[in-house]
């Protein structure tokens, strides 16, 4: 293993944003501590600050990771009851109760997530509702412990913050810290992983992200923040009862997050503040019971339909347009793809691999081996099982039978991200990029592949690596643009760059030429050759026989899920069975497939 070549350090940006944030936060804390507030304002601000912390928890789960959680009030309640019961019944210090409540919430969040996050979607919505309902029932009925519906009165605040204003200042300070952490989170490894999972679970998995663990982490983190908010809430109001943590509250939390914008902690604070204040402005509506809430329900629909990113998402777009462009980074270096010394053993060995869907044998006892270096093509007519094979190889499907070995290691039963860690990279026929990210961020996720020994784990190194990969496919100049602004052909190149940045042992390309025009196809051919020239091992499937015969030095042919030919390119293309499979029996066996490859 050689160390990566030294790169000039990227210019560090002056952390203006962070400094401004710190100043604003300090100002807010000072203001909270010193401005004389009447009881009403104090209560409303206390509520806003503590709720905001919980809503920021939703920013993590829902905004960053895209998982719905309709039990945020339950986690909020866990934190609150930990502080309530801890300080009142057990006489434990507030400072001990608060983290206990947070851990309790995070632990239950993790368990809840771990047991159901594989299902996702509607199921997750239902399970979180169930948890919410059960917790409410327990809080109400387990009277010896929870005091039941009477609630817990006389909760004690910590000695230093016993007075309302100083306690509010504490809440605001915590809110500021939490807000900062979540604001910076998208740029961290975990945050990027969450966004990748949200944007495209499958692609995240094959890029080496442990999708399941990322989701559980997001869920636990969201619950942790809810617990923190709840603990502060209990101290703030000094009385809690089960009905404050009901399902209805969870819906309120969710609406607060959505209204403000689920993508940013700022949105969370805006949403929370508005939903606590709006009723103030709409006083006149309250004369008729129900009218206010009817309008509220209507507003939820309108927000979802017309302002999908919430208020802050909407404002943020305007701000981003005004922002100065960053200074250009230094020119990227040459992409290094490092391959283990050739031992002569095949990189990939597939033995008797089968995948059945019910009675359909999509892949039926297929065996082949991919030698190190060069391009191996897997071809076959539509429905021959090519893509299924690829999906089994990258771990998206569990095989019905057979074995897969990568560099001699059995990876048959590994998950997609574990295979990525072992060195399999892949692209998809229908491009799967992380749509909310820039080209660079997409490729950084590729570079972050676990066990990618080539890149240090700091941001500068990762970005440098990603730029190299983008430069390799010719898109370095547009690295910071969002992927949605790229043409279809360029998006495919970004996907390839994402895989390359991870320095894969084996690269699986799923119909890379699909949807490309002829000049793009030519460019792709050149690119494939350049990749092969770097010693990379590639397994490609494609319909385009010209492309395949152009670049591949070895071909395996499938038909109806079975291998019908395997060997060097020129030989395989002349085999009668192959010709028959492609052209039917009408064509004479001697014609051969039309390629511009001269017969060997």
């Amino acid at each position, binding site marked *: 293993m050689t160390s990566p070549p030294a790169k000039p350090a990227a210019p560090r940006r002056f952390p203006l944003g962070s400094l401004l944030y710190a100043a604003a936060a300090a100002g807010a804390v000072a203001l909270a501590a010193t401005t004389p507030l009447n009881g009403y304002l104090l209560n409303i601000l206390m509520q806003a600050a503590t709720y905001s912390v919980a809503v920021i928890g939703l920013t993590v789960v829902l905004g960053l990771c895209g998982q719905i959680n309709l039990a945020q009030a339950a986690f909020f309640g866990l934190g609150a009851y930990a502080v309530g019961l801890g300080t009142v019944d057990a006489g434990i210090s507030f400072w001990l109760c608060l983290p206990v409540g947070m851990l309790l919430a995070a632990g239950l969040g993790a368990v809840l997530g771990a047991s159901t996050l594989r299902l996702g979607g*509607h199921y997750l919505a239902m399970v979180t509702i169930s948890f919410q309902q059960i917790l409410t029932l327990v809080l109400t009925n387990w009277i010896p412990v929870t005091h039941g519906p009477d609630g817990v009165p006389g909760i004690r605040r910590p000695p230093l913050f016993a007075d309302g204003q100083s306690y509010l200042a504490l809440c605001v300070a915590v809110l500021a810290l939490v807000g900062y952490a979540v604001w910076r989170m998208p740029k961290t490894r975990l945050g990027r992983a969450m966004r990748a999972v949200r944007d495209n679970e499958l692609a995240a998995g094959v890029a080496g992200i442990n999708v399941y663990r990322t989701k559980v982490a997001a869920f636990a983190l969201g619950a942790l923040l809810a617990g923190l908010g709840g603990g502060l809430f209990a101290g703030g109001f000094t009385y809690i009862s089960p009905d404050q943590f009901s399902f209805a509250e969870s819906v309120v939390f969710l*609406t607060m997050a959505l209204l403000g914008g689920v993508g940013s902690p700022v949105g969370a604070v805006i949403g929370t503040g508005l939903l606590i204040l709006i009723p103030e402005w709409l006083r006149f509506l309250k004369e008729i019971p129900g009218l206010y809430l*009817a309008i509220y329900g209507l507003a939820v629909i309108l927000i979802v339909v017309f302002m999908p990113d919430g208020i802050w998402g909407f404002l943020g777009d305007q701000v981003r347009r005004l922002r100065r462009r960053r200074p250009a980074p230094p020119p990227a270096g040459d992409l290094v793809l490092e391959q283990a010394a050739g031992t002569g053993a095949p990189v990939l060995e597939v033995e008797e691999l089968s995948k059945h869907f019910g009675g359909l044998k999509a892949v039926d006892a297929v065996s082949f081996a991919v030698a190190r270096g060069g391009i191996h093509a897997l071809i076959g007519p539509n429905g021959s099982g090519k893509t299924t094979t690829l999906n089994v190889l990258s771990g998206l499907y569990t095989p019905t039978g057979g074995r897969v070995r990568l560099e001699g290691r059995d990876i048959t039963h590994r998950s997609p991200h574990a295979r990525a860690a072992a060195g399999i990279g892949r692209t998809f026929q229908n491009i799967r990029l992380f749509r909310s990210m820039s080209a660079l961020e997409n490729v950084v996720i590729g570079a972050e592949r676990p066990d990618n020994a080539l890149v240090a784990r700091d941001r500068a190194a990762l970005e440098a690596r990603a730029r190299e990969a983008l430069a390799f496919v010719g898109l370095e100049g547009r690295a910071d643009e969002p992927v949605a602004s790229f043409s279809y052909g360029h998006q495919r190149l970004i996907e390839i760059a994402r895989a390359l940045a991870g320095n894969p042992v084996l690269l699986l390309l799923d119909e890379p030429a699909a949807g490309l025009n002829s000049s793009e196809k030519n460019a792709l051919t050149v690119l494939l050759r350049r990749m092969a020239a770097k010693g990379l091992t590639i397994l490609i499937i494609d319909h385009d026989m010209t492309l395949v015969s152009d670049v591949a030095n070895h071909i395996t042919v499938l038909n109806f899920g079975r291998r019908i030919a395997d060997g060097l390119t020129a030989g395989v293309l002349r085999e009668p069975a192959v010709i028959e499979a492609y052209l039917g029996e009408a064509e004479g066996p001697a014609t051969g497939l039309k390629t511009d490859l001269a017969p060997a």
Partner: protein
Amino acid sequence: MDLILQLLFTGIGIGSVYALVALGFVLIFRAANVVNFAQGEFSMVAAFLMVVFAVDLGWPYWLSILLTLGGMALLGALFNLGVYYPLRHRTYLPVIISTIGASIFLANTTLALYGPQPQVLPPVFEGQGFLVGPVFLDSQYLLIIAVTAALVAFQYWFFEHTLVGKKLQATSQDKEMAALLGIPVAGMIMLTFVYSAVLGGIAGILVAPVLFVSIQMGATIALKAFAATIIGGFGDVAGAIVGGLALGVIETFGAAYVSVPYKDAFAFIVLVIFLVLRPQGLFGERVAEKA
């Protein structure tokens, strides 16, 4: 023994209500891949409409039912246009939230128009019910069970033996393919919403005499019906029926033999067990995203 029979009857009666509402869930889920969190409010709105027509205005019961179901059809259509249609190309998340918004809207609009007092809707039959041996059979519950069975039969006939039913099935299985075959997909989805709203309405009219007419009545039933849907296997009609009945029976026996205050927890505990052990439900197939 008579105790068990009595509980069984009650459980099946309550379960039929869940099943009826669950049926509406399943239809919309199959057609539009949407979980409609406002399904319970359909029942609530229908019950209030009945109170307006049959009690306040004193019109004949059958006419009130017709008018109410007509109103529900209209509501279903408006719901589709306002809550689902604008979001049809987005992911499930905005749609869930939008239907939650709709449920808040419907409940509170009713509150604003009608006030918070619970109302009484007289049952269809005069007598309360009769004793069969030691078991009391509530006539309204008998009616609920009968109507649920009839609707299931109707639905089976409709989907399997009519052209419109087959088109609906095609739409729910593969919208793109259905569109290619010339089936008006948007129209079919509209029809599904209308039918689901009517189903929810029937459930509301039937339970109103038993549970009284209140703003909250829909939400409590809907949560259970939703759980029933998942237990039965999302998107499966038979599953919704079996899931609903099972839930009603489990809940009633759980209350009788384990704990009354925790009665509502049983539904959710069963649900969670199912989700962990058999997430595809009793009848459903595991759904996987295709690469």
